[in-house]
Each structure stands twice: as C-alpha cells, then as structure tokens.
C-alpha cells in the first residue's frame, strides 16, 4: 500500500546496505538491499528515486526524477 500524495517518507540505509523506507502515516517499512556497485530504484508518489552505491568512493549517490522524466534533485552521502 502506497502512502497518500505529499506524505513524507524516510529512507534509512544501514551499514549492511539495507535500505528501509519508512512510510510514516501507515507505519509501513519497505526494505531493500544495496550492495557496493549496485543500483536500485524506488517509486515514490511524485517520481522515482535512483540510488547507486559507488564502490570506488564508498558514497551513496541519489537522483530524483519526477514522473515526466525531469531531474529534480541530486546528491550523495558524505
């Protein structure tokens, strides 16, 4: 079950590479595993979040696209 539009979600990535998506309202947790070198995609209400665990720099890089394919936000962990 997906959360309502504009709902805030929290995604946490543990040291094991496990990603947990916390849907606050429904208290729903979705977990995926990201290993070094892997890429994962997660569909959110307004678009798609792309995660890549860069094995060279050991950084998690992310990019968010809206549903029309427009890149809206990028970043990486420190």
């Amino acid at each position, binding site marked *: 079950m997906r959360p309502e539009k504009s709902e805030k979600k929290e995604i*946490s*990535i543990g040291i094991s590479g496990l990603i947990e998506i916390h849907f606050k309202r429904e208290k729903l947790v979705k977990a995926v595993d990201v290993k070094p070198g892997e*890429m994962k995609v997660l569909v959110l209400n307004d678009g*798609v*979040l*792309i995660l890549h665990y860069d094995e060279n720099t050991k950084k998690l890089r992310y990019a968010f696209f809206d549903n*029309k394919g427009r890149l809206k936000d*990028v970043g990486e962990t420190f």
Partner: protein
Amino acid sequence: MLKNKKRVKNVTMSVTISEEDVEKELELHDQLDLVLVLAIGPSPASHLAVQKRAILISKLLGVDLEVEPYRYGLYSETITEKLQSAKNATLFRKRDGKYELAPIGLRAYYKILKRLAVKKGEDTLRFIEILYRMGDDELLALTYHLFPESFEKSEIKDKVRAMIEQLRGKGIIKARREGEKIVLEADA
C-alpha cells in the same frame, strides 16, 4: 492510352509473428541484446540515448557491461558493436540516424517487460518508462552524477557539471548520517 488499363492495387504484406517466433528469437540473443531492446524502446532513439539508457538498465539489472570514460561520458564499445551487428537486425535497425525496434523486436520488447515485471517488480518498469521521457541533458546529468568517472575524458564536463550543480540540494531528498546509518528523507 492502354486499352486494358491495369489497376495496380497496393498490397500490404502483413507478417504474422507468433508467440513462438518471439520466444525462439529471444533464445538466439544474450542478455545484453535484450538490454538494448529495452534501451531503444518503443520510439526511435539516438545513439547517445541508447548508450546512456543501456548503461543505466544494465547496471540496474546486474547485466555485465564494459564501459570506459570517453568524450560524452561513459561509453561502451560493446553496445556500439551490438547495435551494428547483422545478428541483431531482426531485433533493431538504424534509420534516419536513429535506432528503432524491428517488428519482432517490438514484440520481444513487450515480452521482456512482462518478464521483468514478474522478476524485478513494477518499480523497475516504471524507471524504464521514465527513461524514455528523459531528454539527452537529463540522461547526461544522471549518468555523470551516478558514475562520476564519466567526467574523466569528457569534452562536455563543464556543461554537465553546471547542470548537476543547479539541481544539487533542492531539498526533495535530504541525506544525513546517524551513526553508522545513512538516512534519506524524501519529501516526494
């Protein structure tokens, strides 16, 4: 003027492609050929778009692909060879400077999507659909950002870096560390 004027009919040849034909065709190709079918998609696509989409899709699906930094970011010689290979002409072809799926390639495309939905889930399909809506600039910014080795030999690195910097820290996704844990807060 001819006494018996011949009326020439336009005859459209319709070739029926059975499910069995598609299955047999798919068995003749390796995983990377099928990634290229997905990368081209239902509408004609430029070489740059096919290269970038194929790099992203192969990474997502865990299909091995050799890439190297080149003039426009990461580039795969294998992709170029496969796009030009006569063996793949049943799946896709080049016309007017763009790549498009042949009739059996289009049938194969929908079959691969169905398989992916079962094996990888709807999120993967959604991402592939969104790839088709991305312009060249978006594809460049995405691949350069996710794979920063793209900058190494790039002739367009300043332009792409500027695009990425404009998007950085827009606040839709916020990242922070909590001890050993990384937390991404998504407001989308």
